[in-house]
């Protein structure tokens, strides 16, 4: 098998803060093949954005990073200034969460794209500008020749993110890291922007790392999924494996909390109880145990960090009870609503078992939310 395009192994990121060190990312591994879409999923504070930033050395100096980020035979964590600048934007580009703040308000949108093009090659201003217009056209911005001379405040939210995508694609990168690209957008344009991103990535054969907290988004477009919790990777595998053969209670919790088209009208959503842990003092053992309905003291959930084991080819998860729960079908979100929770000991959610519609959907929430 060819080497993956990007291979991250044993990534650790620690921030020095006034309250002590914070371990934001703890031993994360993942890889992306050329042209593939990898989704990294987790709640806020799970370390997914920090993971993305560390790839391009964009974290503040207070972060200490260890591990390996292999890109074309180089460890990006170690390359020096001129080379990392070539990679940034030229080979790997990023799309950020809020396009309003991620674009500079005092420069014209076109100039910001031109600036990026000129940073990665000897291109005349005129040619770079033509390229910028072409890119704006490509992402579906009407009247690109006029829009190129406008400022961000003259763009709508969706348009801004389109412009951001245009900028990210303007130097033909092999990989795009999209950090929650739709979170700041109106729900009505979220799907459009995501579709545009994955469609263009597909057409231009660009790989995508899609960082999101929205599993519904993932189902429709990712080839592979990595689920993170409290700085650790808890499950990773192909999208089908993770959705249909879920191997971690946290992933299960995320899937169960999605609104579904085929659930009963009025049936409550099932949130995951409790709060994500403080990264200043993450819980010992499995970080998810305080919120896990399946946690058992006698199995070491509270004391031992679960090993990341392969559950089926290419599908790994880190849970002491994964094999047992998977065999039971307790982690199958398509089972009768609430059944999995009933067996478990939880005080956070109570669902009456009158739901009679067995989930038959194959794609989780999909984009229909």
């Amino acid at each position, binding site marked *: 098998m060819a080497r993956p395009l990007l291979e991250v192994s044993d990534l650790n990121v620690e921030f020095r803060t006034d309250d002590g060190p914070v371990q934001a990312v703890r031993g994360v591994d993942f890889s992306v093949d050329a042209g593939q879409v990898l989704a990294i999923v987790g709640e806020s504070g799970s370390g997914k954005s920090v993971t993305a930033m560390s790839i391009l050395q964009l974290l503040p100096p207070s972060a200490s990073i260890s591990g390996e980020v292999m890109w074309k035979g180089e460890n990006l964590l170690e390359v020096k*200034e001129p080379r990392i600048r070539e990679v940034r934007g030229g080979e790997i*580009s990023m799309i950020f969460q809020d396009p309003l*703040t991620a674009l*500079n308000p*005092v*420069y014209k949108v076109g100039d910001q794209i031109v600036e990026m093009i000129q940073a990665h090659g000897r291109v005349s201003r005129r040619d770079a500008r033509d390229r910028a217009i072409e890119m704006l056209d490509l992402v579906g911005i009407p009247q690109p020749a006029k829009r190129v001379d406008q*400022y961000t405040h003259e763009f709508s939210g969706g348009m801004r993110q389109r412009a951001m995508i245009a900028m990210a694609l303007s130097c033909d990168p092999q990989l795009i890291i999209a950090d929650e690209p739709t979170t700041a957008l109106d729900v009505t344009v979220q799907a459009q922007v995501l579709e545009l991103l994955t469609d263009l990535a597909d057409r231009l054969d660009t790989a995508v790392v899609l960082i999101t907290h929205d599993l519904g988004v993932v189902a429709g477009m990712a080839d592979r999924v990595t689920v993170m919790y409290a700085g650790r990777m808890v499950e990773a595998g192909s999208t089908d494996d993770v959705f249909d053969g879920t191997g971690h209670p946290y992933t299960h919790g995320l899937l169960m909390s999605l609104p579904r088209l085929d659930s009963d009208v009025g049936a409550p959503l099932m949130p995951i109880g409790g709060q994500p842990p403080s990264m200043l003092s993450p819980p010992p053992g499995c970080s998810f145990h305080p919120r896990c309905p399946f946690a058992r003291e006698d199995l070491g959930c509270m004391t031992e960090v679960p090993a990341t084991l392969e559950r089926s080819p290419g599908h790994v998860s880190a849970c002491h009870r994964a094999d047992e729960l998977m065999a039971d079908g307790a982690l199958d979100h398509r089972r009768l609503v609430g059944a999995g929770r009933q067996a478990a000991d939880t005080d956070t959610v109570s669902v009456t078992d009158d739901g009679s519609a067995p989930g038959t959907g194959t794609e989780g929430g999909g984009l229909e939310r």
Partner: protein
Amino acid sequence: MGTFVLRRLFQLVIVLWGGATILFILFYMVGGNPAERMASGGGERNPNPQVVRNLEVRYGLDKPKPQQYVAHMSRIARGDFGESFRTREPVVDIAKRRAPTSFRLAFWAVIIEGTMGIGSGMLSARRRNSLADVVTTIAAVVASAIPVFVLGFMIKQLTGVYAYQNDWPAWARFPTIGLGDNDWIFWVIPTGNTWKYVVQPAFVLAAVSTAILARITRTSMLETMRMDHVRTARAKGLSEKQVTRKHVLRNALIPVVTILGIDFGTMVGAAILTETVFNIQGLGSQIVASAKDLDMPVVIGLTMLVTLVYGTMSLLVDLSYAYLNPRVRLGDD
């Protein structure tokens, strides 16, 4: 934008008129007879009643106050600001004599404020918590805490008195009176030895604002450096230098430019302490002296000039603000 400027200019006229009116009312309330003061040579001898009478007629002081007010205002509207009750010098001539000095002093003070304030603010922001940051922070606190006249007298004593007494080299001795001869090119650039007159008062006048500006620059830079679009600029593959120059500085200096402009407007008219310490014949000290003499035409005329400068500066600041920050559109408020 044209309408915006027109409207602001109209507002400025209103402000000038309002200011003059308030001053007139204050002079009326203070009372006293300017004609008597003039005839007595500023209170030195008993005035001759006939002289007082003549003066009253000459300046229209015998008329009822509202009539005096209307007469004075309509003269001003025609560009005639009257003449000094004390010296009979036309107010316009006084302004012509005094204003260039004040402008030059303020000009150089703002240059010092801009370069030193922005420079040290940038330095301490870029090397946050470094020695340079700590030193500029302390220097800024000290500079803004020392009263202007204390700082002025100390410097004057050191370079103007002590330096001569102890045979310091010529370059370390400074004149301490006035702004030197009228050797200026382009109106503001000193020639020959004149710069030696300018540098100390300009520095003293700039001290407090420089310290404040350094703090504001630092805060503004730090704030901008944390912004998402700066991270985007870095993620685009720009060098640190490009990121700082194009994306941090440009955004961070928007409030700084505003302050510089307003400071210039203030310094032209309100440099009284500095002018006093260094015996500089500027507008501020003239207004204070004339106010003491109840020399109404001079006070009203020069105050209007100072107000005009301030108003023009704030208009220019607003225009530059709209230029620097495209989100601001003029005339939409």
